[in-house]
């Protein structure tokens, strides 16, 4: 990936709780993520990984607790706007890859939107298919558009919810390479994953969620693996 201009930023979850009716999806989650960290969130289905990421993206308002961002160049809610890749592709099937990216670039207020979109289309390997409707794309190609969309505004924080879903081995290898570049450029990455993979090896820290609570949090090798593989669960 091309080196980009952004101010490294971190995020802090303070006693975050999220209720959906009677269901408590997150229970007093407190987590401080430093600028430049690459955190892997593991956990079984329904453990609260997606909710945590959606809270971090400010798509879900926590029932209790607070989320804050810290930026090296100064704090502020508006200053930090995370890039988010979710389960769904979050792009329009009825628009082409280029139209999708241009739309979101304009909404985000990206300066020289057309140039930025062209650069990203080259980087995600979709330049040749830029004029094709997204509905004609394979799952892997859609995921590439989704990742390009998340990177449009050069976010300092990247939130990825099982980003390898639906990707073939080549796609996973491409994604791992792309994420390595993003991590090495100083971006803070928070991603939920299932099991060990090329992508999980990029993590500098692993957190396991269990029934909405943090069950383990480590930066060391052996424990890191056990968190991803549920070896001690």
């Amino acid at each position, binding site marked *: 990936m091309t080196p980009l201009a952004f101010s490294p930023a971190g995020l802090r979850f303070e006693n975050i709780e999220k209720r959906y009716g009677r269901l408590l999806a997150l229970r007093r989650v407190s987590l401080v993520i430093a600028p430049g960290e690459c955190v892997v969130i593991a956990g079984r289905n329904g453990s609260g990984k997606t909710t945590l990421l*959606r809270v971090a*993206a*400010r*798509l*879900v*308002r926590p029932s209790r607790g607070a989320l804050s961002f810290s930026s090296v160049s100064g704090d502020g809610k508006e200053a930090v*706007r*995370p890039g*988010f890749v*979710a*389960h*769904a*592709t*979050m*792009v*329009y*099937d*009825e*628009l082409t890859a280029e*139209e999708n990216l241009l*739309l*979101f670039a*304009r*909404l*985000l*207020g990206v300066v020289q939107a057309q140039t930025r979109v062209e650069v990203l289309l080259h980087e995600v390997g979709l330049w040749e298919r830029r004029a094709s409707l997204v509905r004609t794309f394979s799952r892997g190609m859609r995921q590439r558009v989704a990742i390009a*969309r998340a990177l449009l505004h050069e976010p300092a924080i990247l939130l990825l919810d099982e980003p390898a879903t639906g990707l073939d081995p080549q796609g996973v290898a491409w994604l791992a390479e792309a994420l390595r570049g993003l991590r090495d450029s100083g971006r803070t990455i928070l991603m939920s994953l299932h099991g060990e993979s090329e992508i999980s090896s990029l993590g500098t820290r692993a957190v396991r969620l269990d029934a909405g609570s943090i069950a383990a949090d480590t930066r060391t090798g052996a424990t890191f693996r056990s968190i991803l593989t549920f070896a001690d669960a």
Partner: protein
Amino acid sequence: MRLFTNCGALIGKELRTEYRSRELLTTTIVFILIVIVLFSFTFDPTSDESRRFAPGLLWLAFLFAASLMLQPCFLREQHNDTLSALRLSVSDPFAIFLAKLVANTLFLLLTELILLPLFAIMYNVAVVPVLHWLVLVFFLASLGISIAGTALSAISAQARMRELLLPLLMLPLLTPILVASTEVTKSLFDRAPYVQWKGVGFLAVFDLVFLTALWLFGEYLLEE
């Protein structure tokens, strides 16, 4: 300023996707066409009776058609979770509503204007002398239907019985618009046409109140 830039980009998206799919316009036009043609068989189109009932029939058809048109407004955004992408991208969530209600008003107005000549022929109503006033009523009523309908579409899209919920919420709420626009249209179809300013004023105030409410509270309708 960002609000209007965002809104412009989103209106472009709405028009482009509709141009490609033609889903909304086709469904709505066919629905109103069926209603107008079916009811024309039950009335004697040459009688004064038809002129008395026609405005009510016309606005009922528009209202039901609008509920069809507004149903997919936010449902479509759930397909690929594009609503989340929009919320993450816009500077003010009101831009999402503003773009949708502008696009919905345009689609509804277009449908109404396409079907007006057919309605005039089938119900033997002289629309040409009062066309400019009719366009004003169509605009104000369509805007009101779109404002309330877009807000309710955002609410119903997150509910379980979403397909049923929108008409259930929308039709009672829009009864005042139905009554006012029917009364104004009736005055325009009269043998000696006149403008019922009270009705026009009511439509304008309805639009203003609901638009302000949407601007103030719209953000909460988009939350998960």
